[in-house]
């Protein structure tokens, strides 16, 4: 069976590289083909990488607090680019400061993300959700 492709990157002007390296390692280890566009990546880079590789999912990380501004419109741009229904996950420290998680999650779900992760989520959690979501799609 061919490996499923996942685009991985840290969005916006965000330089936090450690989680990205760990996710790359863990996703690869779990049998996925990881297309890692690294830190400091604009929305366009995520979309181009997904188009080029026909990826099944995009893992967006945002650590530095600007996640809300940086992620706005990503789903719409994916749709425009023809990446219909591509799985969009986001995690890290996606908002500024300590906020009520329920509200934060809702804001990002409303933006069109399929899964939204609070700080400190393990790579394994993302991977098992991914397996479940991909399984549903067959």
């Amino acid at each position, binding site marked *: 069976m061919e490996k499923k492709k996942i685009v991985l990157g840290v969005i916006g002007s965000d330089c936090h590289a450690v989680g990205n390296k760990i996710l790359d390692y863990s996703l690869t280890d779990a049998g996925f083909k990881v297309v890692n566009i690294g830190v400091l990546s604009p929305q366009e880079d995520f979309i181009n990488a997904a188009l080029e590789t026909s990826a099944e999912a995009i893992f967006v990380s945002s650590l530095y607090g600007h996640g809300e*501004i940086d992620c706005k419109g990503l789903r719409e741009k994916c749709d425009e680019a023809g990446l219909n229904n591509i799985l969009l996950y986001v995690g890290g420290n996606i908002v*500024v400061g*300590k906020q009520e998680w329920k509200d934060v999650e809702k804001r990002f779900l409303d933006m069109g993300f399929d899964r939204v992760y609070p700080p*400190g989520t393990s790579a394994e959690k993302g991977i098992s959700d991914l397996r479940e979501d991909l399984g549903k799609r067959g």
Partner: protein
Amino acid sequence: MNLKNKRISDEDFFKEREEVLVGWPTGKEVDLQEAVDYLKKVPVEKNFAKVLENAKNAGITLAQPRAGVPLIDKHIELLNHLSKEGGADLLPSTIDAYSRLNRYAECQVGIDESIKAGRAMMNGFPAVNHGVKGCREVYESVDKPLQARHGTPDSRLLAEIIHAGGWTSNEGGGISYNVPYAKDVSIEKSLSDWMYCDRLVGFYAEQGIIINREPFGPLTGTLVPPSMAIVTGIIEALLAAEQGVKSITVGFGQCGNLVQDVAAIRALEELTEEYLKEYGYDDVVVTTVFHQWMGGFPEDEAKAFGVISFGSATAALAGATKVIVKTPHEAIGIPTKEANASGIKATKMVLNMLEGQRLPSSKALEAEIEMIKAETKCIMDKTFELGNGDLIVGTVKGFETGVIDIPFAPSKYNAGKIMPARDNNGAVRYFMTGNVPFTKDILDFNKAKLEERAKFEKREISFQMTIDDIFAVGKGKLIGRP
């Protein structure tokens, strides 16, 4: 390459300056002569360099938080809370991440959105957008020295604006604010831009105004071995001194083994002073900064207080001139002003209880200092050699060849070949040494230390160890045992 480690001529400086100031409309506000007059009126207790020097002489450790919000009035409120309620000795202004990439137009969006949303939509204070006027408003509304803390590869315009704004310290450097913070900026470019920032401080010094500069010691904050961090501190100190900087604070981020951390601060201070002397910079005041644990924090606030307090104890026992304070919100997000103040209070309590106490000299401590110095010297020697005696050339080539190599850095100009891991006592050692030019003794030492742990844990030395170590503190331990 053309860049050399030589004081920028006035001609070149003022030419470059013209380009810098047009980077954003607020650049027009900077009038150097007027700024000199303004800075001459800064009282001793609000001059960063002076306050540090006095603390060094008194043998006490000062506490400084990180903090910055987008809007001026909120920022002033925040700083005053940290000073008055928290008891901070030195004040920061953490600059937002758009400014760090010189995206001042995006900053404007962030400012506007923050006003609209009624909450901070940015992770710092966009000093360039607020201009000299805004910076002075902040300076005049607080009672302690101010420093810009950021992560900006090209901080030239920022430096112009903050110093003219009365802020008497700027954190960063050509290595430390590039490699951990950027992906595509060449080392040559950032070294050149920071030469400018240093020269600006040197210019002020010639007018009798001492401004402090602080290389960012912790780098990626993630298991950086002491000697590698110290190398970058020494290099940035030497480069700054060449441009005429007279007050330099070299730094180091806590690794977690008490003896190694104290040794690192001692080695850092002694080596920086030695190198400065050796290269003829005799009148530079060197102080040190110890950063409380810079890696992933535990989410639980009580545990975070434990990490914060342990870091404070280490800073005091090491005799660092200041300590940079984390907060109980660290793992989650930018702290509220209350959470930030509580981090300072815990820190100061520990500093006060340990005032005057030092880790006594011992064989273990001396051996660790010697090892750190030996490792550092290997890298420094090779760097000078690569540059044929020129430190800028050597540094650029050092990164090219992986002689200088920062673990987990995002920069594509960094080799990324070394890999650290903790030994059985939690000290950070080199597990993969890449192209770092160590002697056989040093290589053997690092290996032996890691094998001790491997044996204890009944597993091979492997990248899994490093990963386990990265998560360990967040999970409540220092060493990532299986």
